[in-house]
């Protein structure tokens, strides 16, 4: 770490996110502004020089010798996180690693990899891994008037309510593995602001030609389905199980493969209405 400290640092900043203090420093003036869109939702600047995680970003590029190019390198504390000639890849690693750090260590939230929308005062949570079709379903639900909460994480509190974590939606085009990021506003999607109790959890993945015939999960199976996508599952299992237990106790949890998102989005909203007895417009 001392070796890294001795490198020349041109700029630095402390932030606080979900109660965690994080430092970022770089050898390139102005680079910190490029990192701002990649910071976790709800971050705030901090004055404290003491941080729990310190990111050091060395921007490479051309060196004094014309035939030599230097790598862009990112450290998290003393560990090297990424090294690449492509700066954007290193910045993506910064975002991913910071998100992981916050997701794992945040004391007052349990982060579950899931898409989340709000509908008439309740949330629909769609847990799942990458490529399970979460984003498509979230967009289809938002297209029917649901409010956008997250495409990435369901951030649960101790009472089992889900808080907004409105990251840009990662839209994958056919044939491409890496997703393109689109802000909710660009897509004309309304973003929710208040924490919501969970009304419905849909444990589902896309399967071509499948029909949506879900089965209801027991509370125990529901917690396991959520825990399988929980970032701090190993780090804080007791807290995670307690929070997810609150969700499972109050929400309708359905599991099954689905076909096209458009076909089941209406069904999900109707099921939520029926389960919660809600009527009227979505607010």
């Amino acid at each position, binding site marked *: 770490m001392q070796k890294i400290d001795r490198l020349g640092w041109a700029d630095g900043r402390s932030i606080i996110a979900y109660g965690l203090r994080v430092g970022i420093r770089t050898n390139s003036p102005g680079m910190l502004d490029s990192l701002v869109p990649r910071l976790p939702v709800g971050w705030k600047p901090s004055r404290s020089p003491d941080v729990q995680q310190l990111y050091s970003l060395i921007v490479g590029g051309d060196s004094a010798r014309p035939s030599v190019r230097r790598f862009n390198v990112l450290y998290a504390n003393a*560990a*090297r*996180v*990424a*090294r*690449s000639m*492509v700066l954007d*890849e*290193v910045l*993506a*690693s910064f975002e*991913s*690693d910071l*998100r*992981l750090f916050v*997701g*794992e260590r945040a004391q007052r939230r349990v*982060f*579950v*990899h899931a898409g989340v929308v709000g509908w008439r005062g309740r949330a629909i949570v769609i847990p799942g*891994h*990458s*490529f*399970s079709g979460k984003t498509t379903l979230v967009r289809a639900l938002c297209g029917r008037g649901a409010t956008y909460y997250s495409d*990435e*994480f369901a951030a649960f509190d101790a009472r089992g309510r889900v808080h907004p974590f409105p990251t840009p939606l*990662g839209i994958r085009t056919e044939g491409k*593995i*890496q*997703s393109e990021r689109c802000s909710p506003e660009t897509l004309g999607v309304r973003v929710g602001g208040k924490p919501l109790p969970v009304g419905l959890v849909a444990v589902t*993945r896309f399967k071509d030609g499948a029909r949506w015939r879900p089965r209801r999960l*027991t*509370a*125990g*199976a529901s*917690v*396991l389905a959520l*825990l*399988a*996508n*929980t*970032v*701090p*599952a*190993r*780090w804080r*299992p*007791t807290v995670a*199980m*307690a929070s997810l*237990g609150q969700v*499972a*106790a109050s929400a309708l949890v359905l599991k099954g493969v689905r076909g096209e998102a458009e076909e089941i989005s209406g069904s999900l909203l109707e099921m939520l209405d029926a389960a919660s007895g809600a009527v009227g417009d979505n607010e």
Partner: protein
Amino acid sequence: MSSARDVTPWARAADLAVEELLDETLVYDLARHKAHSLNRTATLVWRQCDGKTTVAAMAVRLARELDLPVNEDLVWVALERLRRTHLLAEGVIVPPESAGYSRRDALRALGLTAALPVIVSILAPRAARAQSCVSDCSGLPDCIPCQQKGRRV
């Protein structure tokens, strides 16, 4: 020599985090990073594994709690499943004459399938497994590159 009816199993207590739900119990094995969901029957048997209660006594209590005519076979099924998931302090030896499918078949014949002990387990994900994939994994110990994650689904 004591018979199988006199066996008094112990529930494992070390390195477990337990969360009670309505009729079920969630158990997280801190040593193996496995989470288990025990249904009502498995929960009732596991809670009685105090090193004092015999299998015969467990069956009597289980019949009372479930309000069903269950016998020791059902308790043995539960104990075997608890043993396999490492939730008993010591390995319980299932009597060979009542092991295997014949016992389950007998329970089905009695119409007690709803009372069968069920334990559902998952391996808890590492933090990186529970988030979106990233394009560049250089240096990230648990990172899932998009190509690999794409193949998994």
